[in-house]
């Protein structure tokens, strides 16, 4: 199938700004789905609120556009009810880790078989450029006119600490790498977290003098390096990319089936 076959044309044009990284990430995601040959009817996209969350409407899968931060618990209800479905949850950085932070760590702790994509552009784009929990200190934002003093989360470390059994990072610049990682994440049985650094030229780039979309993409390229690469060894300040964790641990829905087996036996 072609990429267009996965899109709901009637939804277009999309609402993302020119140069936004989210379209590239959508592209990487759809290619991963295409290469995995997942039936459209076997795939659920659940999202919250924000620029990233609009993905759910654009794709021709089962799509559930929920509330700000609440995509994961809604997805948990869907997944536990119908464990055979592939459930993918694209989220923004604020959506996933500020208002949805509690849901994020607990979904990871349960290791429920959901693929969470954190599309990290370090800003609240839809509301017009407020800093997010991934902005980090020293950033200009409409709610930080004197620059931010808030530290940021490290999504990867947070996900690992919370118990996610697959944790990876890539960027919108590394579209092919993102596809490869997403394929593995979707196939992984358990809670997978893929952080993909995205760019928001409109609200982050302009305010922080990072230039246009192209130069922001350049930034993704220059400031990251693959795990195990010489570049990272030489310069540990670079942001590492790749798969950090990929382990087999008991998955929530499968474990619950065992509860059902025990409970229904006890009743008999």
């Amino acid at each position, binding site marked *: 199938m072609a990429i267009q076959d996965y899109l*709901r044309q*009637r*939804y277009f044009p999309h609402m993302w700004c020119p140069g936004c990284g989210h379209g590239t990430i959508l592209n990487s995601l759809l290619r991963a789905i295409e290469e995995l040959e997942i039936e*459209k*009817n076997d795939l*659920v996209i*659940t999202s919250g609120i924000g620029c990233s969350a609009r993905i*759910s*409407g654009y794709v*021709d*899968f*089962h*799509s*559930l*556009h*929920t*509330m700000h931060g*609440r995509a*994961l*618990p*809604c*997805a*948990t*209800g*869907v*997944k*536990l*009810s*119908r464990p055979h*479905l592939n459930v993918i949850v694209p989220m923004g950085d604020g959506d996933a880790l500020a208002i949805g932070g*509690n*849901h994020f*760590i*607990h979904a990871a702790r349960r290791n429920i078989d959901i693929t969470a994509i954190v599309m990290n552009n370090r800003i609240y784009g839809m509301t017009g450029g407020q800093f997010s929990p991934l902005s980090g200190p020293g950033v200009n934002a409409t709610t930080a006119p004197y620059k931010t003093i808030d530290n940021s989360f490290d999504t990867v470390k947070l996900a690992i600490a919370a118990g996610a059994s697959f944790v990876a990072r890539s960027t919108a610049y590394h579209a092919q790498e993102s596809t490869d990682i997403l394929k593995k994440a979707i196939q992984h049985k358990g809670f997978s977290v893929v952080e993909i650094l995205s760019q928001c030229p409109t609200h982050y780039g302009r305010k922080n003098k990072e230039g246009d979309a192209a130069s922001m993409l350049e930034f993704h390229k220059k400031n990251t390096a693959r795990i195990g690469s010489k570049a990272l060894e030489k310069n540990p300040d670079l942001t590492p990319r790749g798969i950090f964790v990929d382990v087999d641990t008991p998955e929530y829905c499968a474990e*619950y089936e065992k*509860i*059902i087996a*025990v*409970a*229904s036996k*006890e*009743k008999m």
Partner: protein
Amino acid sequence: MKNKIKFIQGNEACVEGALYAGIDFFAGYPITPSTEIMEHLARRLPERGGKFIQMEDEIASMCAIIGASLTGRKSMTATSGPGFSLKQEAIGYACMTEIPCVIANVQRGGPSTGNPTHVSQGDVNQARWGTHGDHSIIALTASNHQDVFAMTVDAFNLAETYRTPVILLLDEAVGHMREKLIVPEEGELEIVDRLRTALGRDVDYHPYLPREDGRLPMSDFGGEHRFNVTGLFHDMWGFPSNNPKVINELLRHLVDKIENNVQAITRYKEHCLDDAEYILVSYGSSARSAIHLAKSRRNRGEKIGVLELQSLWPFPTELVREKCSNAKAVLVVEMNMGQVLAQVKAAVEKPDRVFLANRIDGKLITPSDIKKLLRVIQGRGV
């Protein structure tokens, strides 16, 4: 027959009702005084292949039942006080997206942490207006375990019939008290199952296109039809829209589907009401005291009756007006500052003859509390 008679808490009666109604999925978070509902379902649901999940918070619990219900599972959560406040955002989402679900709120004293282990009926208005924006809602209540059972079954039935969240407004006294429940035989009470679309695979299904009778058949999310669900105003395909016509029609639909069916939704009981000169309007555990008083005064020849409301929202205005039309006075017996009182005053012809018999100190209102006020109204002194 023997194991059909149970001596249990009201919260367990709610569980029995939910199981009878065909609950498949429960998500919750521990909170007094509703916790027993989730404790019992944690054991009972997997026995029959259902799913139970303890979520990280109240919000997540509400979200999880929304997700589960959408896939075709009869779903429920239970909470109290602060938890009910936290669930309001997602209750609004369920209203907007028309996802059937049941929220049991075993009321305790508030605001805030309030009085977790003591009785109150302070959430009546929150049940109606807790979530933001115009909408309508169904809220049921019950005063004894047999009715808790029946109203729980009804809550599931109404949720499916009107594709809407239904609030089961119980209270601490009924929830924690133990009394007899006779579990009805299978088939004794009506069970409404989900109205599913007859459209086959690969046929365009419109999740928000009403049939001629106004009902919207559902298709199990994740099944044969792919569609979009959003909390934004949306068209018949479920696609976001800010077309004024679409917004206007959807909002009216959300309100009308409930407000135009008040009669069908209304549940109530009469106790000695026929020739009553003094009418006690009550609900939930307060109604027990009202009925107690009415029966004991009847034995002394006083014409007192009780109109026990079992559906609070949509408020049965016409019913209250009709039943109270010949009353010399109406006493609304409730454990709050007059939340149902305001509705009754608005309903009757002589609002100045409507009085509040309330108690708000965490103690169950007693028959003598009501009697004291009644004597004053009857002009028989304090």
